[in-house]
């Protein structure tokens, strides 16, 4: 061979190799568009913004570790974010846009029940997978949508266990104050009432407060006049803090139980630690580090380092959502939405999640697409929420009841 043709052959070979490796590199790294719809402004932002942060951390972790492995390909997650402003019409438009314009096949987020219910009304007809986070309205998972999954348990799942707990503390006359127009709270209360009354208790007062109210002195004065031996508070964190403060100021001193979540900082902005002493919070364990494992601690540290504050309890749902999606895709070995949906419906509890899930028949999601986490009792002791005990819950029975609640004209679509 002449020197010239050798040079030509070698350089062509080099070029070919270069092209091949770069093509291989391009082929190996792909983008997976994931639609993220949440309430990032307006009244729901208190739940939506923490979710957004948690998802950002999860996505960065997954992408940093190489992405989602599907065969020879690595999919990096590209999050397309929309704000539904806690408004159902906005949510419908926003998800519509994600599906039509951005062509996503996976939508996550959904911290608030109103907008989520609106989307759940039409998502069954779409070729996408919807993974719901903090939204707690029960009927979101009773519509027979086979492509909708939720890892946050509905309110009444915890309510029943809470009723038993309160009765176990010897309370006989319970006064209730809460945002009773919100589905989450009235479902929780309904379940609580059933169990509490079964064990001989009586609910002597049911006062309501609006989700924007901060002055509950009138309701608390009325409650005080009825001489309860226990007080139960279920409302958003910010208002719960005012209720506890005003109860103190009115001299209402009885064992107090709540369902509101909230970090220590959120409460201490409104009232002092002494005023909070002894208050119980009866809720899904969510992101309570004392009750969880090392993944949770690692997540909390990343969150604190990046955003300068402790993660809110509902951040666990959002963070896990990304890892659940990743596990389902990897198990399916494909990003085809039908395969991933089938995979998600039958998967076990994945390893990288932070929350503690209770499997149903060995699987993460039950036949309604609903997952369950443990319930816990927490008590404010010396300026900190302390994990007291787990609240025993019967997941299988609840899941069966949920299936029965599914409207019969909604076969799985």
């Amino acid at each position, binding site marked *: 061979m002449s020197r010239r043709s050798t040079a030509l052959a070698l350089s062509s070979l080099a070029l070919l190799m270069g092209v091949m490796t770069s093509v291989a590199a391009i082929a190996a790294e792909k983008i997976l568009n994931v639609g993220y719809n949440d309430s990032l402004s307006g009244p729901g932002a208190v739940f939506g913004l923490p979710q957004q942060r948690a998802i950002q951390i999860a996505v960065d972790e997954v992408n940093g570790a190489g992405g989602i492995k599907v065969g020879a390909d690595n999919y990096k997650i590209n999050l397309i974010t929309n704000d539904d402003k806690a408004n159902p019409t906005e949510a419908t438009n926003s998800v519509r846009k994600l599906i039509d314009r951005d062509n996503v096949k996976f939508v996550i987020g959904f911290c608030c029940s109103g907008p989520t219910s609106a989307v759940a009304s039409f998502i069954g007809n779409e070729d996408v997978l919807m993974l719901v986070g903090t939204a707690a309205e029960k009927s979101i998972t009773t519509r027979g949508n086979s492509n909708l999954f939720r890892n946050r348990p509905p309110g009444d799942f915890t309510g029943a266990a809470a009723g038993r707990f309160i009765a176990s503390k010897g309370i006989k006359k319970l006064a209730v104050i809460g945002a009773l127009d919100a589905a989450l709270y009235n479902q929780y209360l309904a379940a609580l009432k059933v169990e509490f009354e079964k064990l001989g208790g009586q609910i002597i007062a049911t006062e309501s407060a609006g989700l924007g109210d901060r002055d509950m002195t009138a309701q608390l004065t009325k409650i005080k006049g009825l001489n309860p031996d226990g007080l139960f508070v279920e409302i958003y964190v910010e208002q719960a803090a005012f209720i506890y403060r005003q109860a103190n100021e*009115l001299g209402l001193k009885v064992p107090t139980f709540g369902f509101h979540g909230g970090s220590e900082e959120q409460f201490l902005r409104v009232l002092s630690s002494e005023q909070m002493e002894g208050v119980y919070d009866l809720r899904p364990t969510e992101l309570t580090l004392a009750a969880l494992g090392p993944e949770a601690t690692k997540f909390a540290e990343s969150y604190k380092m990046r955003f300068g504050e402790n993660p809110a309890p509902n951040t666990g749902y959002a963070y896990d959502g990304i890892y659940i999606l990743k596990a389902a895709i990897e198990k399916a070995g494909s990003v085809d939405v039908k395969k991933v949906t089938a995979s998600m419906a039958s998967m076990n509890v994945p390893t990288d999640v932070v929350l503690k899930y209770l499997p149903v028949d060995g699987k993460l999601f039950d036949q309604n697409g609903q997952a369950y986490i443990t319930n816990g009792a927490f008590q404010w002791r010396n300026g900190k929420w302390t994990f007291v005990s787990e609240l025993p819950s019967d997941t299988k029975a609840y899941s069966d009841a949920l299936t029965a609640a599914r409207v019969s004209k909604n076969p799985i679509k």
Partner: protein
Amino acid sequence: MPSAAEILQQIVNGTVIGSVYVLIALGLTVIFGILGVAHFAHGSVAMFGGYLTFWISQKYGLSLYPAMILAIPFGAALGVILELFAYRPVRNAAPINAFIVALGLTMLVDRLNMLLFGPDQLVIRTPYNGVYEIGSIAVSELRIQVVVVTVVLLCLIGYLISHTSAGRAVRAVAQNPYAATLMGIDVNWVSLLIFAVSSALGVVAGALIGALLALAPGVGENLVIKGFAILILGGLGSIPGAIIGGLTLGISEALAAGLLSSAYKDVIAFMIMIIVILLRPQGLLGRE
């Protein structure tokens, strides 16, 4: 059947919140009564004052009252700016225009507050956490202070109106703007003064709400609607009407929530408004 003590407690609760309502209603009634402007954005201005108080107290480590006093001039300045740039251009147009401008201003100032101070609720913490118990009636220190501050301000305003030349000018414009102009009073200047004073009252109201409850988006609108309910109840443009109306509303809300249903507490204000319009449109103490 609730006991006398419980009813009394509700009345005490109602008086405290009623005092804040009085402050808001005062700010509204002077502007409406004298200038004929439905200054809907007053609630947002009050919130601005409250947020500013919070910020000053955090940044310079001051407690509630010094921070509030420092915030007052800025609140007054905001009121003046709104008058000059938004309300004055439509002063001689149809009243509906001023109302639309007011709606626009409400959106503007409310969102400006959100941009400047964030969407989270802010609570002005005070050291006045002590609780006084008289019999079985419990009242916290802070709540007593709110009532005291309101009374002090009312006396101050009353004095200013009756014993200063500025006050006389305001009264003259209130009686007859045209005659006042003929007498050499600059109506423009009086307008600015009225907006400044009203906004100063708003700052105090906002700061007190921030200490008693919290500052958050939406609180301002809620307050101003109640403020107008009070105006309708007490009579547009009547200062004694604002006082009586404010206390009446506060106490009625507390009693209704206590004796009837807490769910519809806010509805009381509106029911009162509607009933008054039906039976006595000029309000309890208003002139036609």
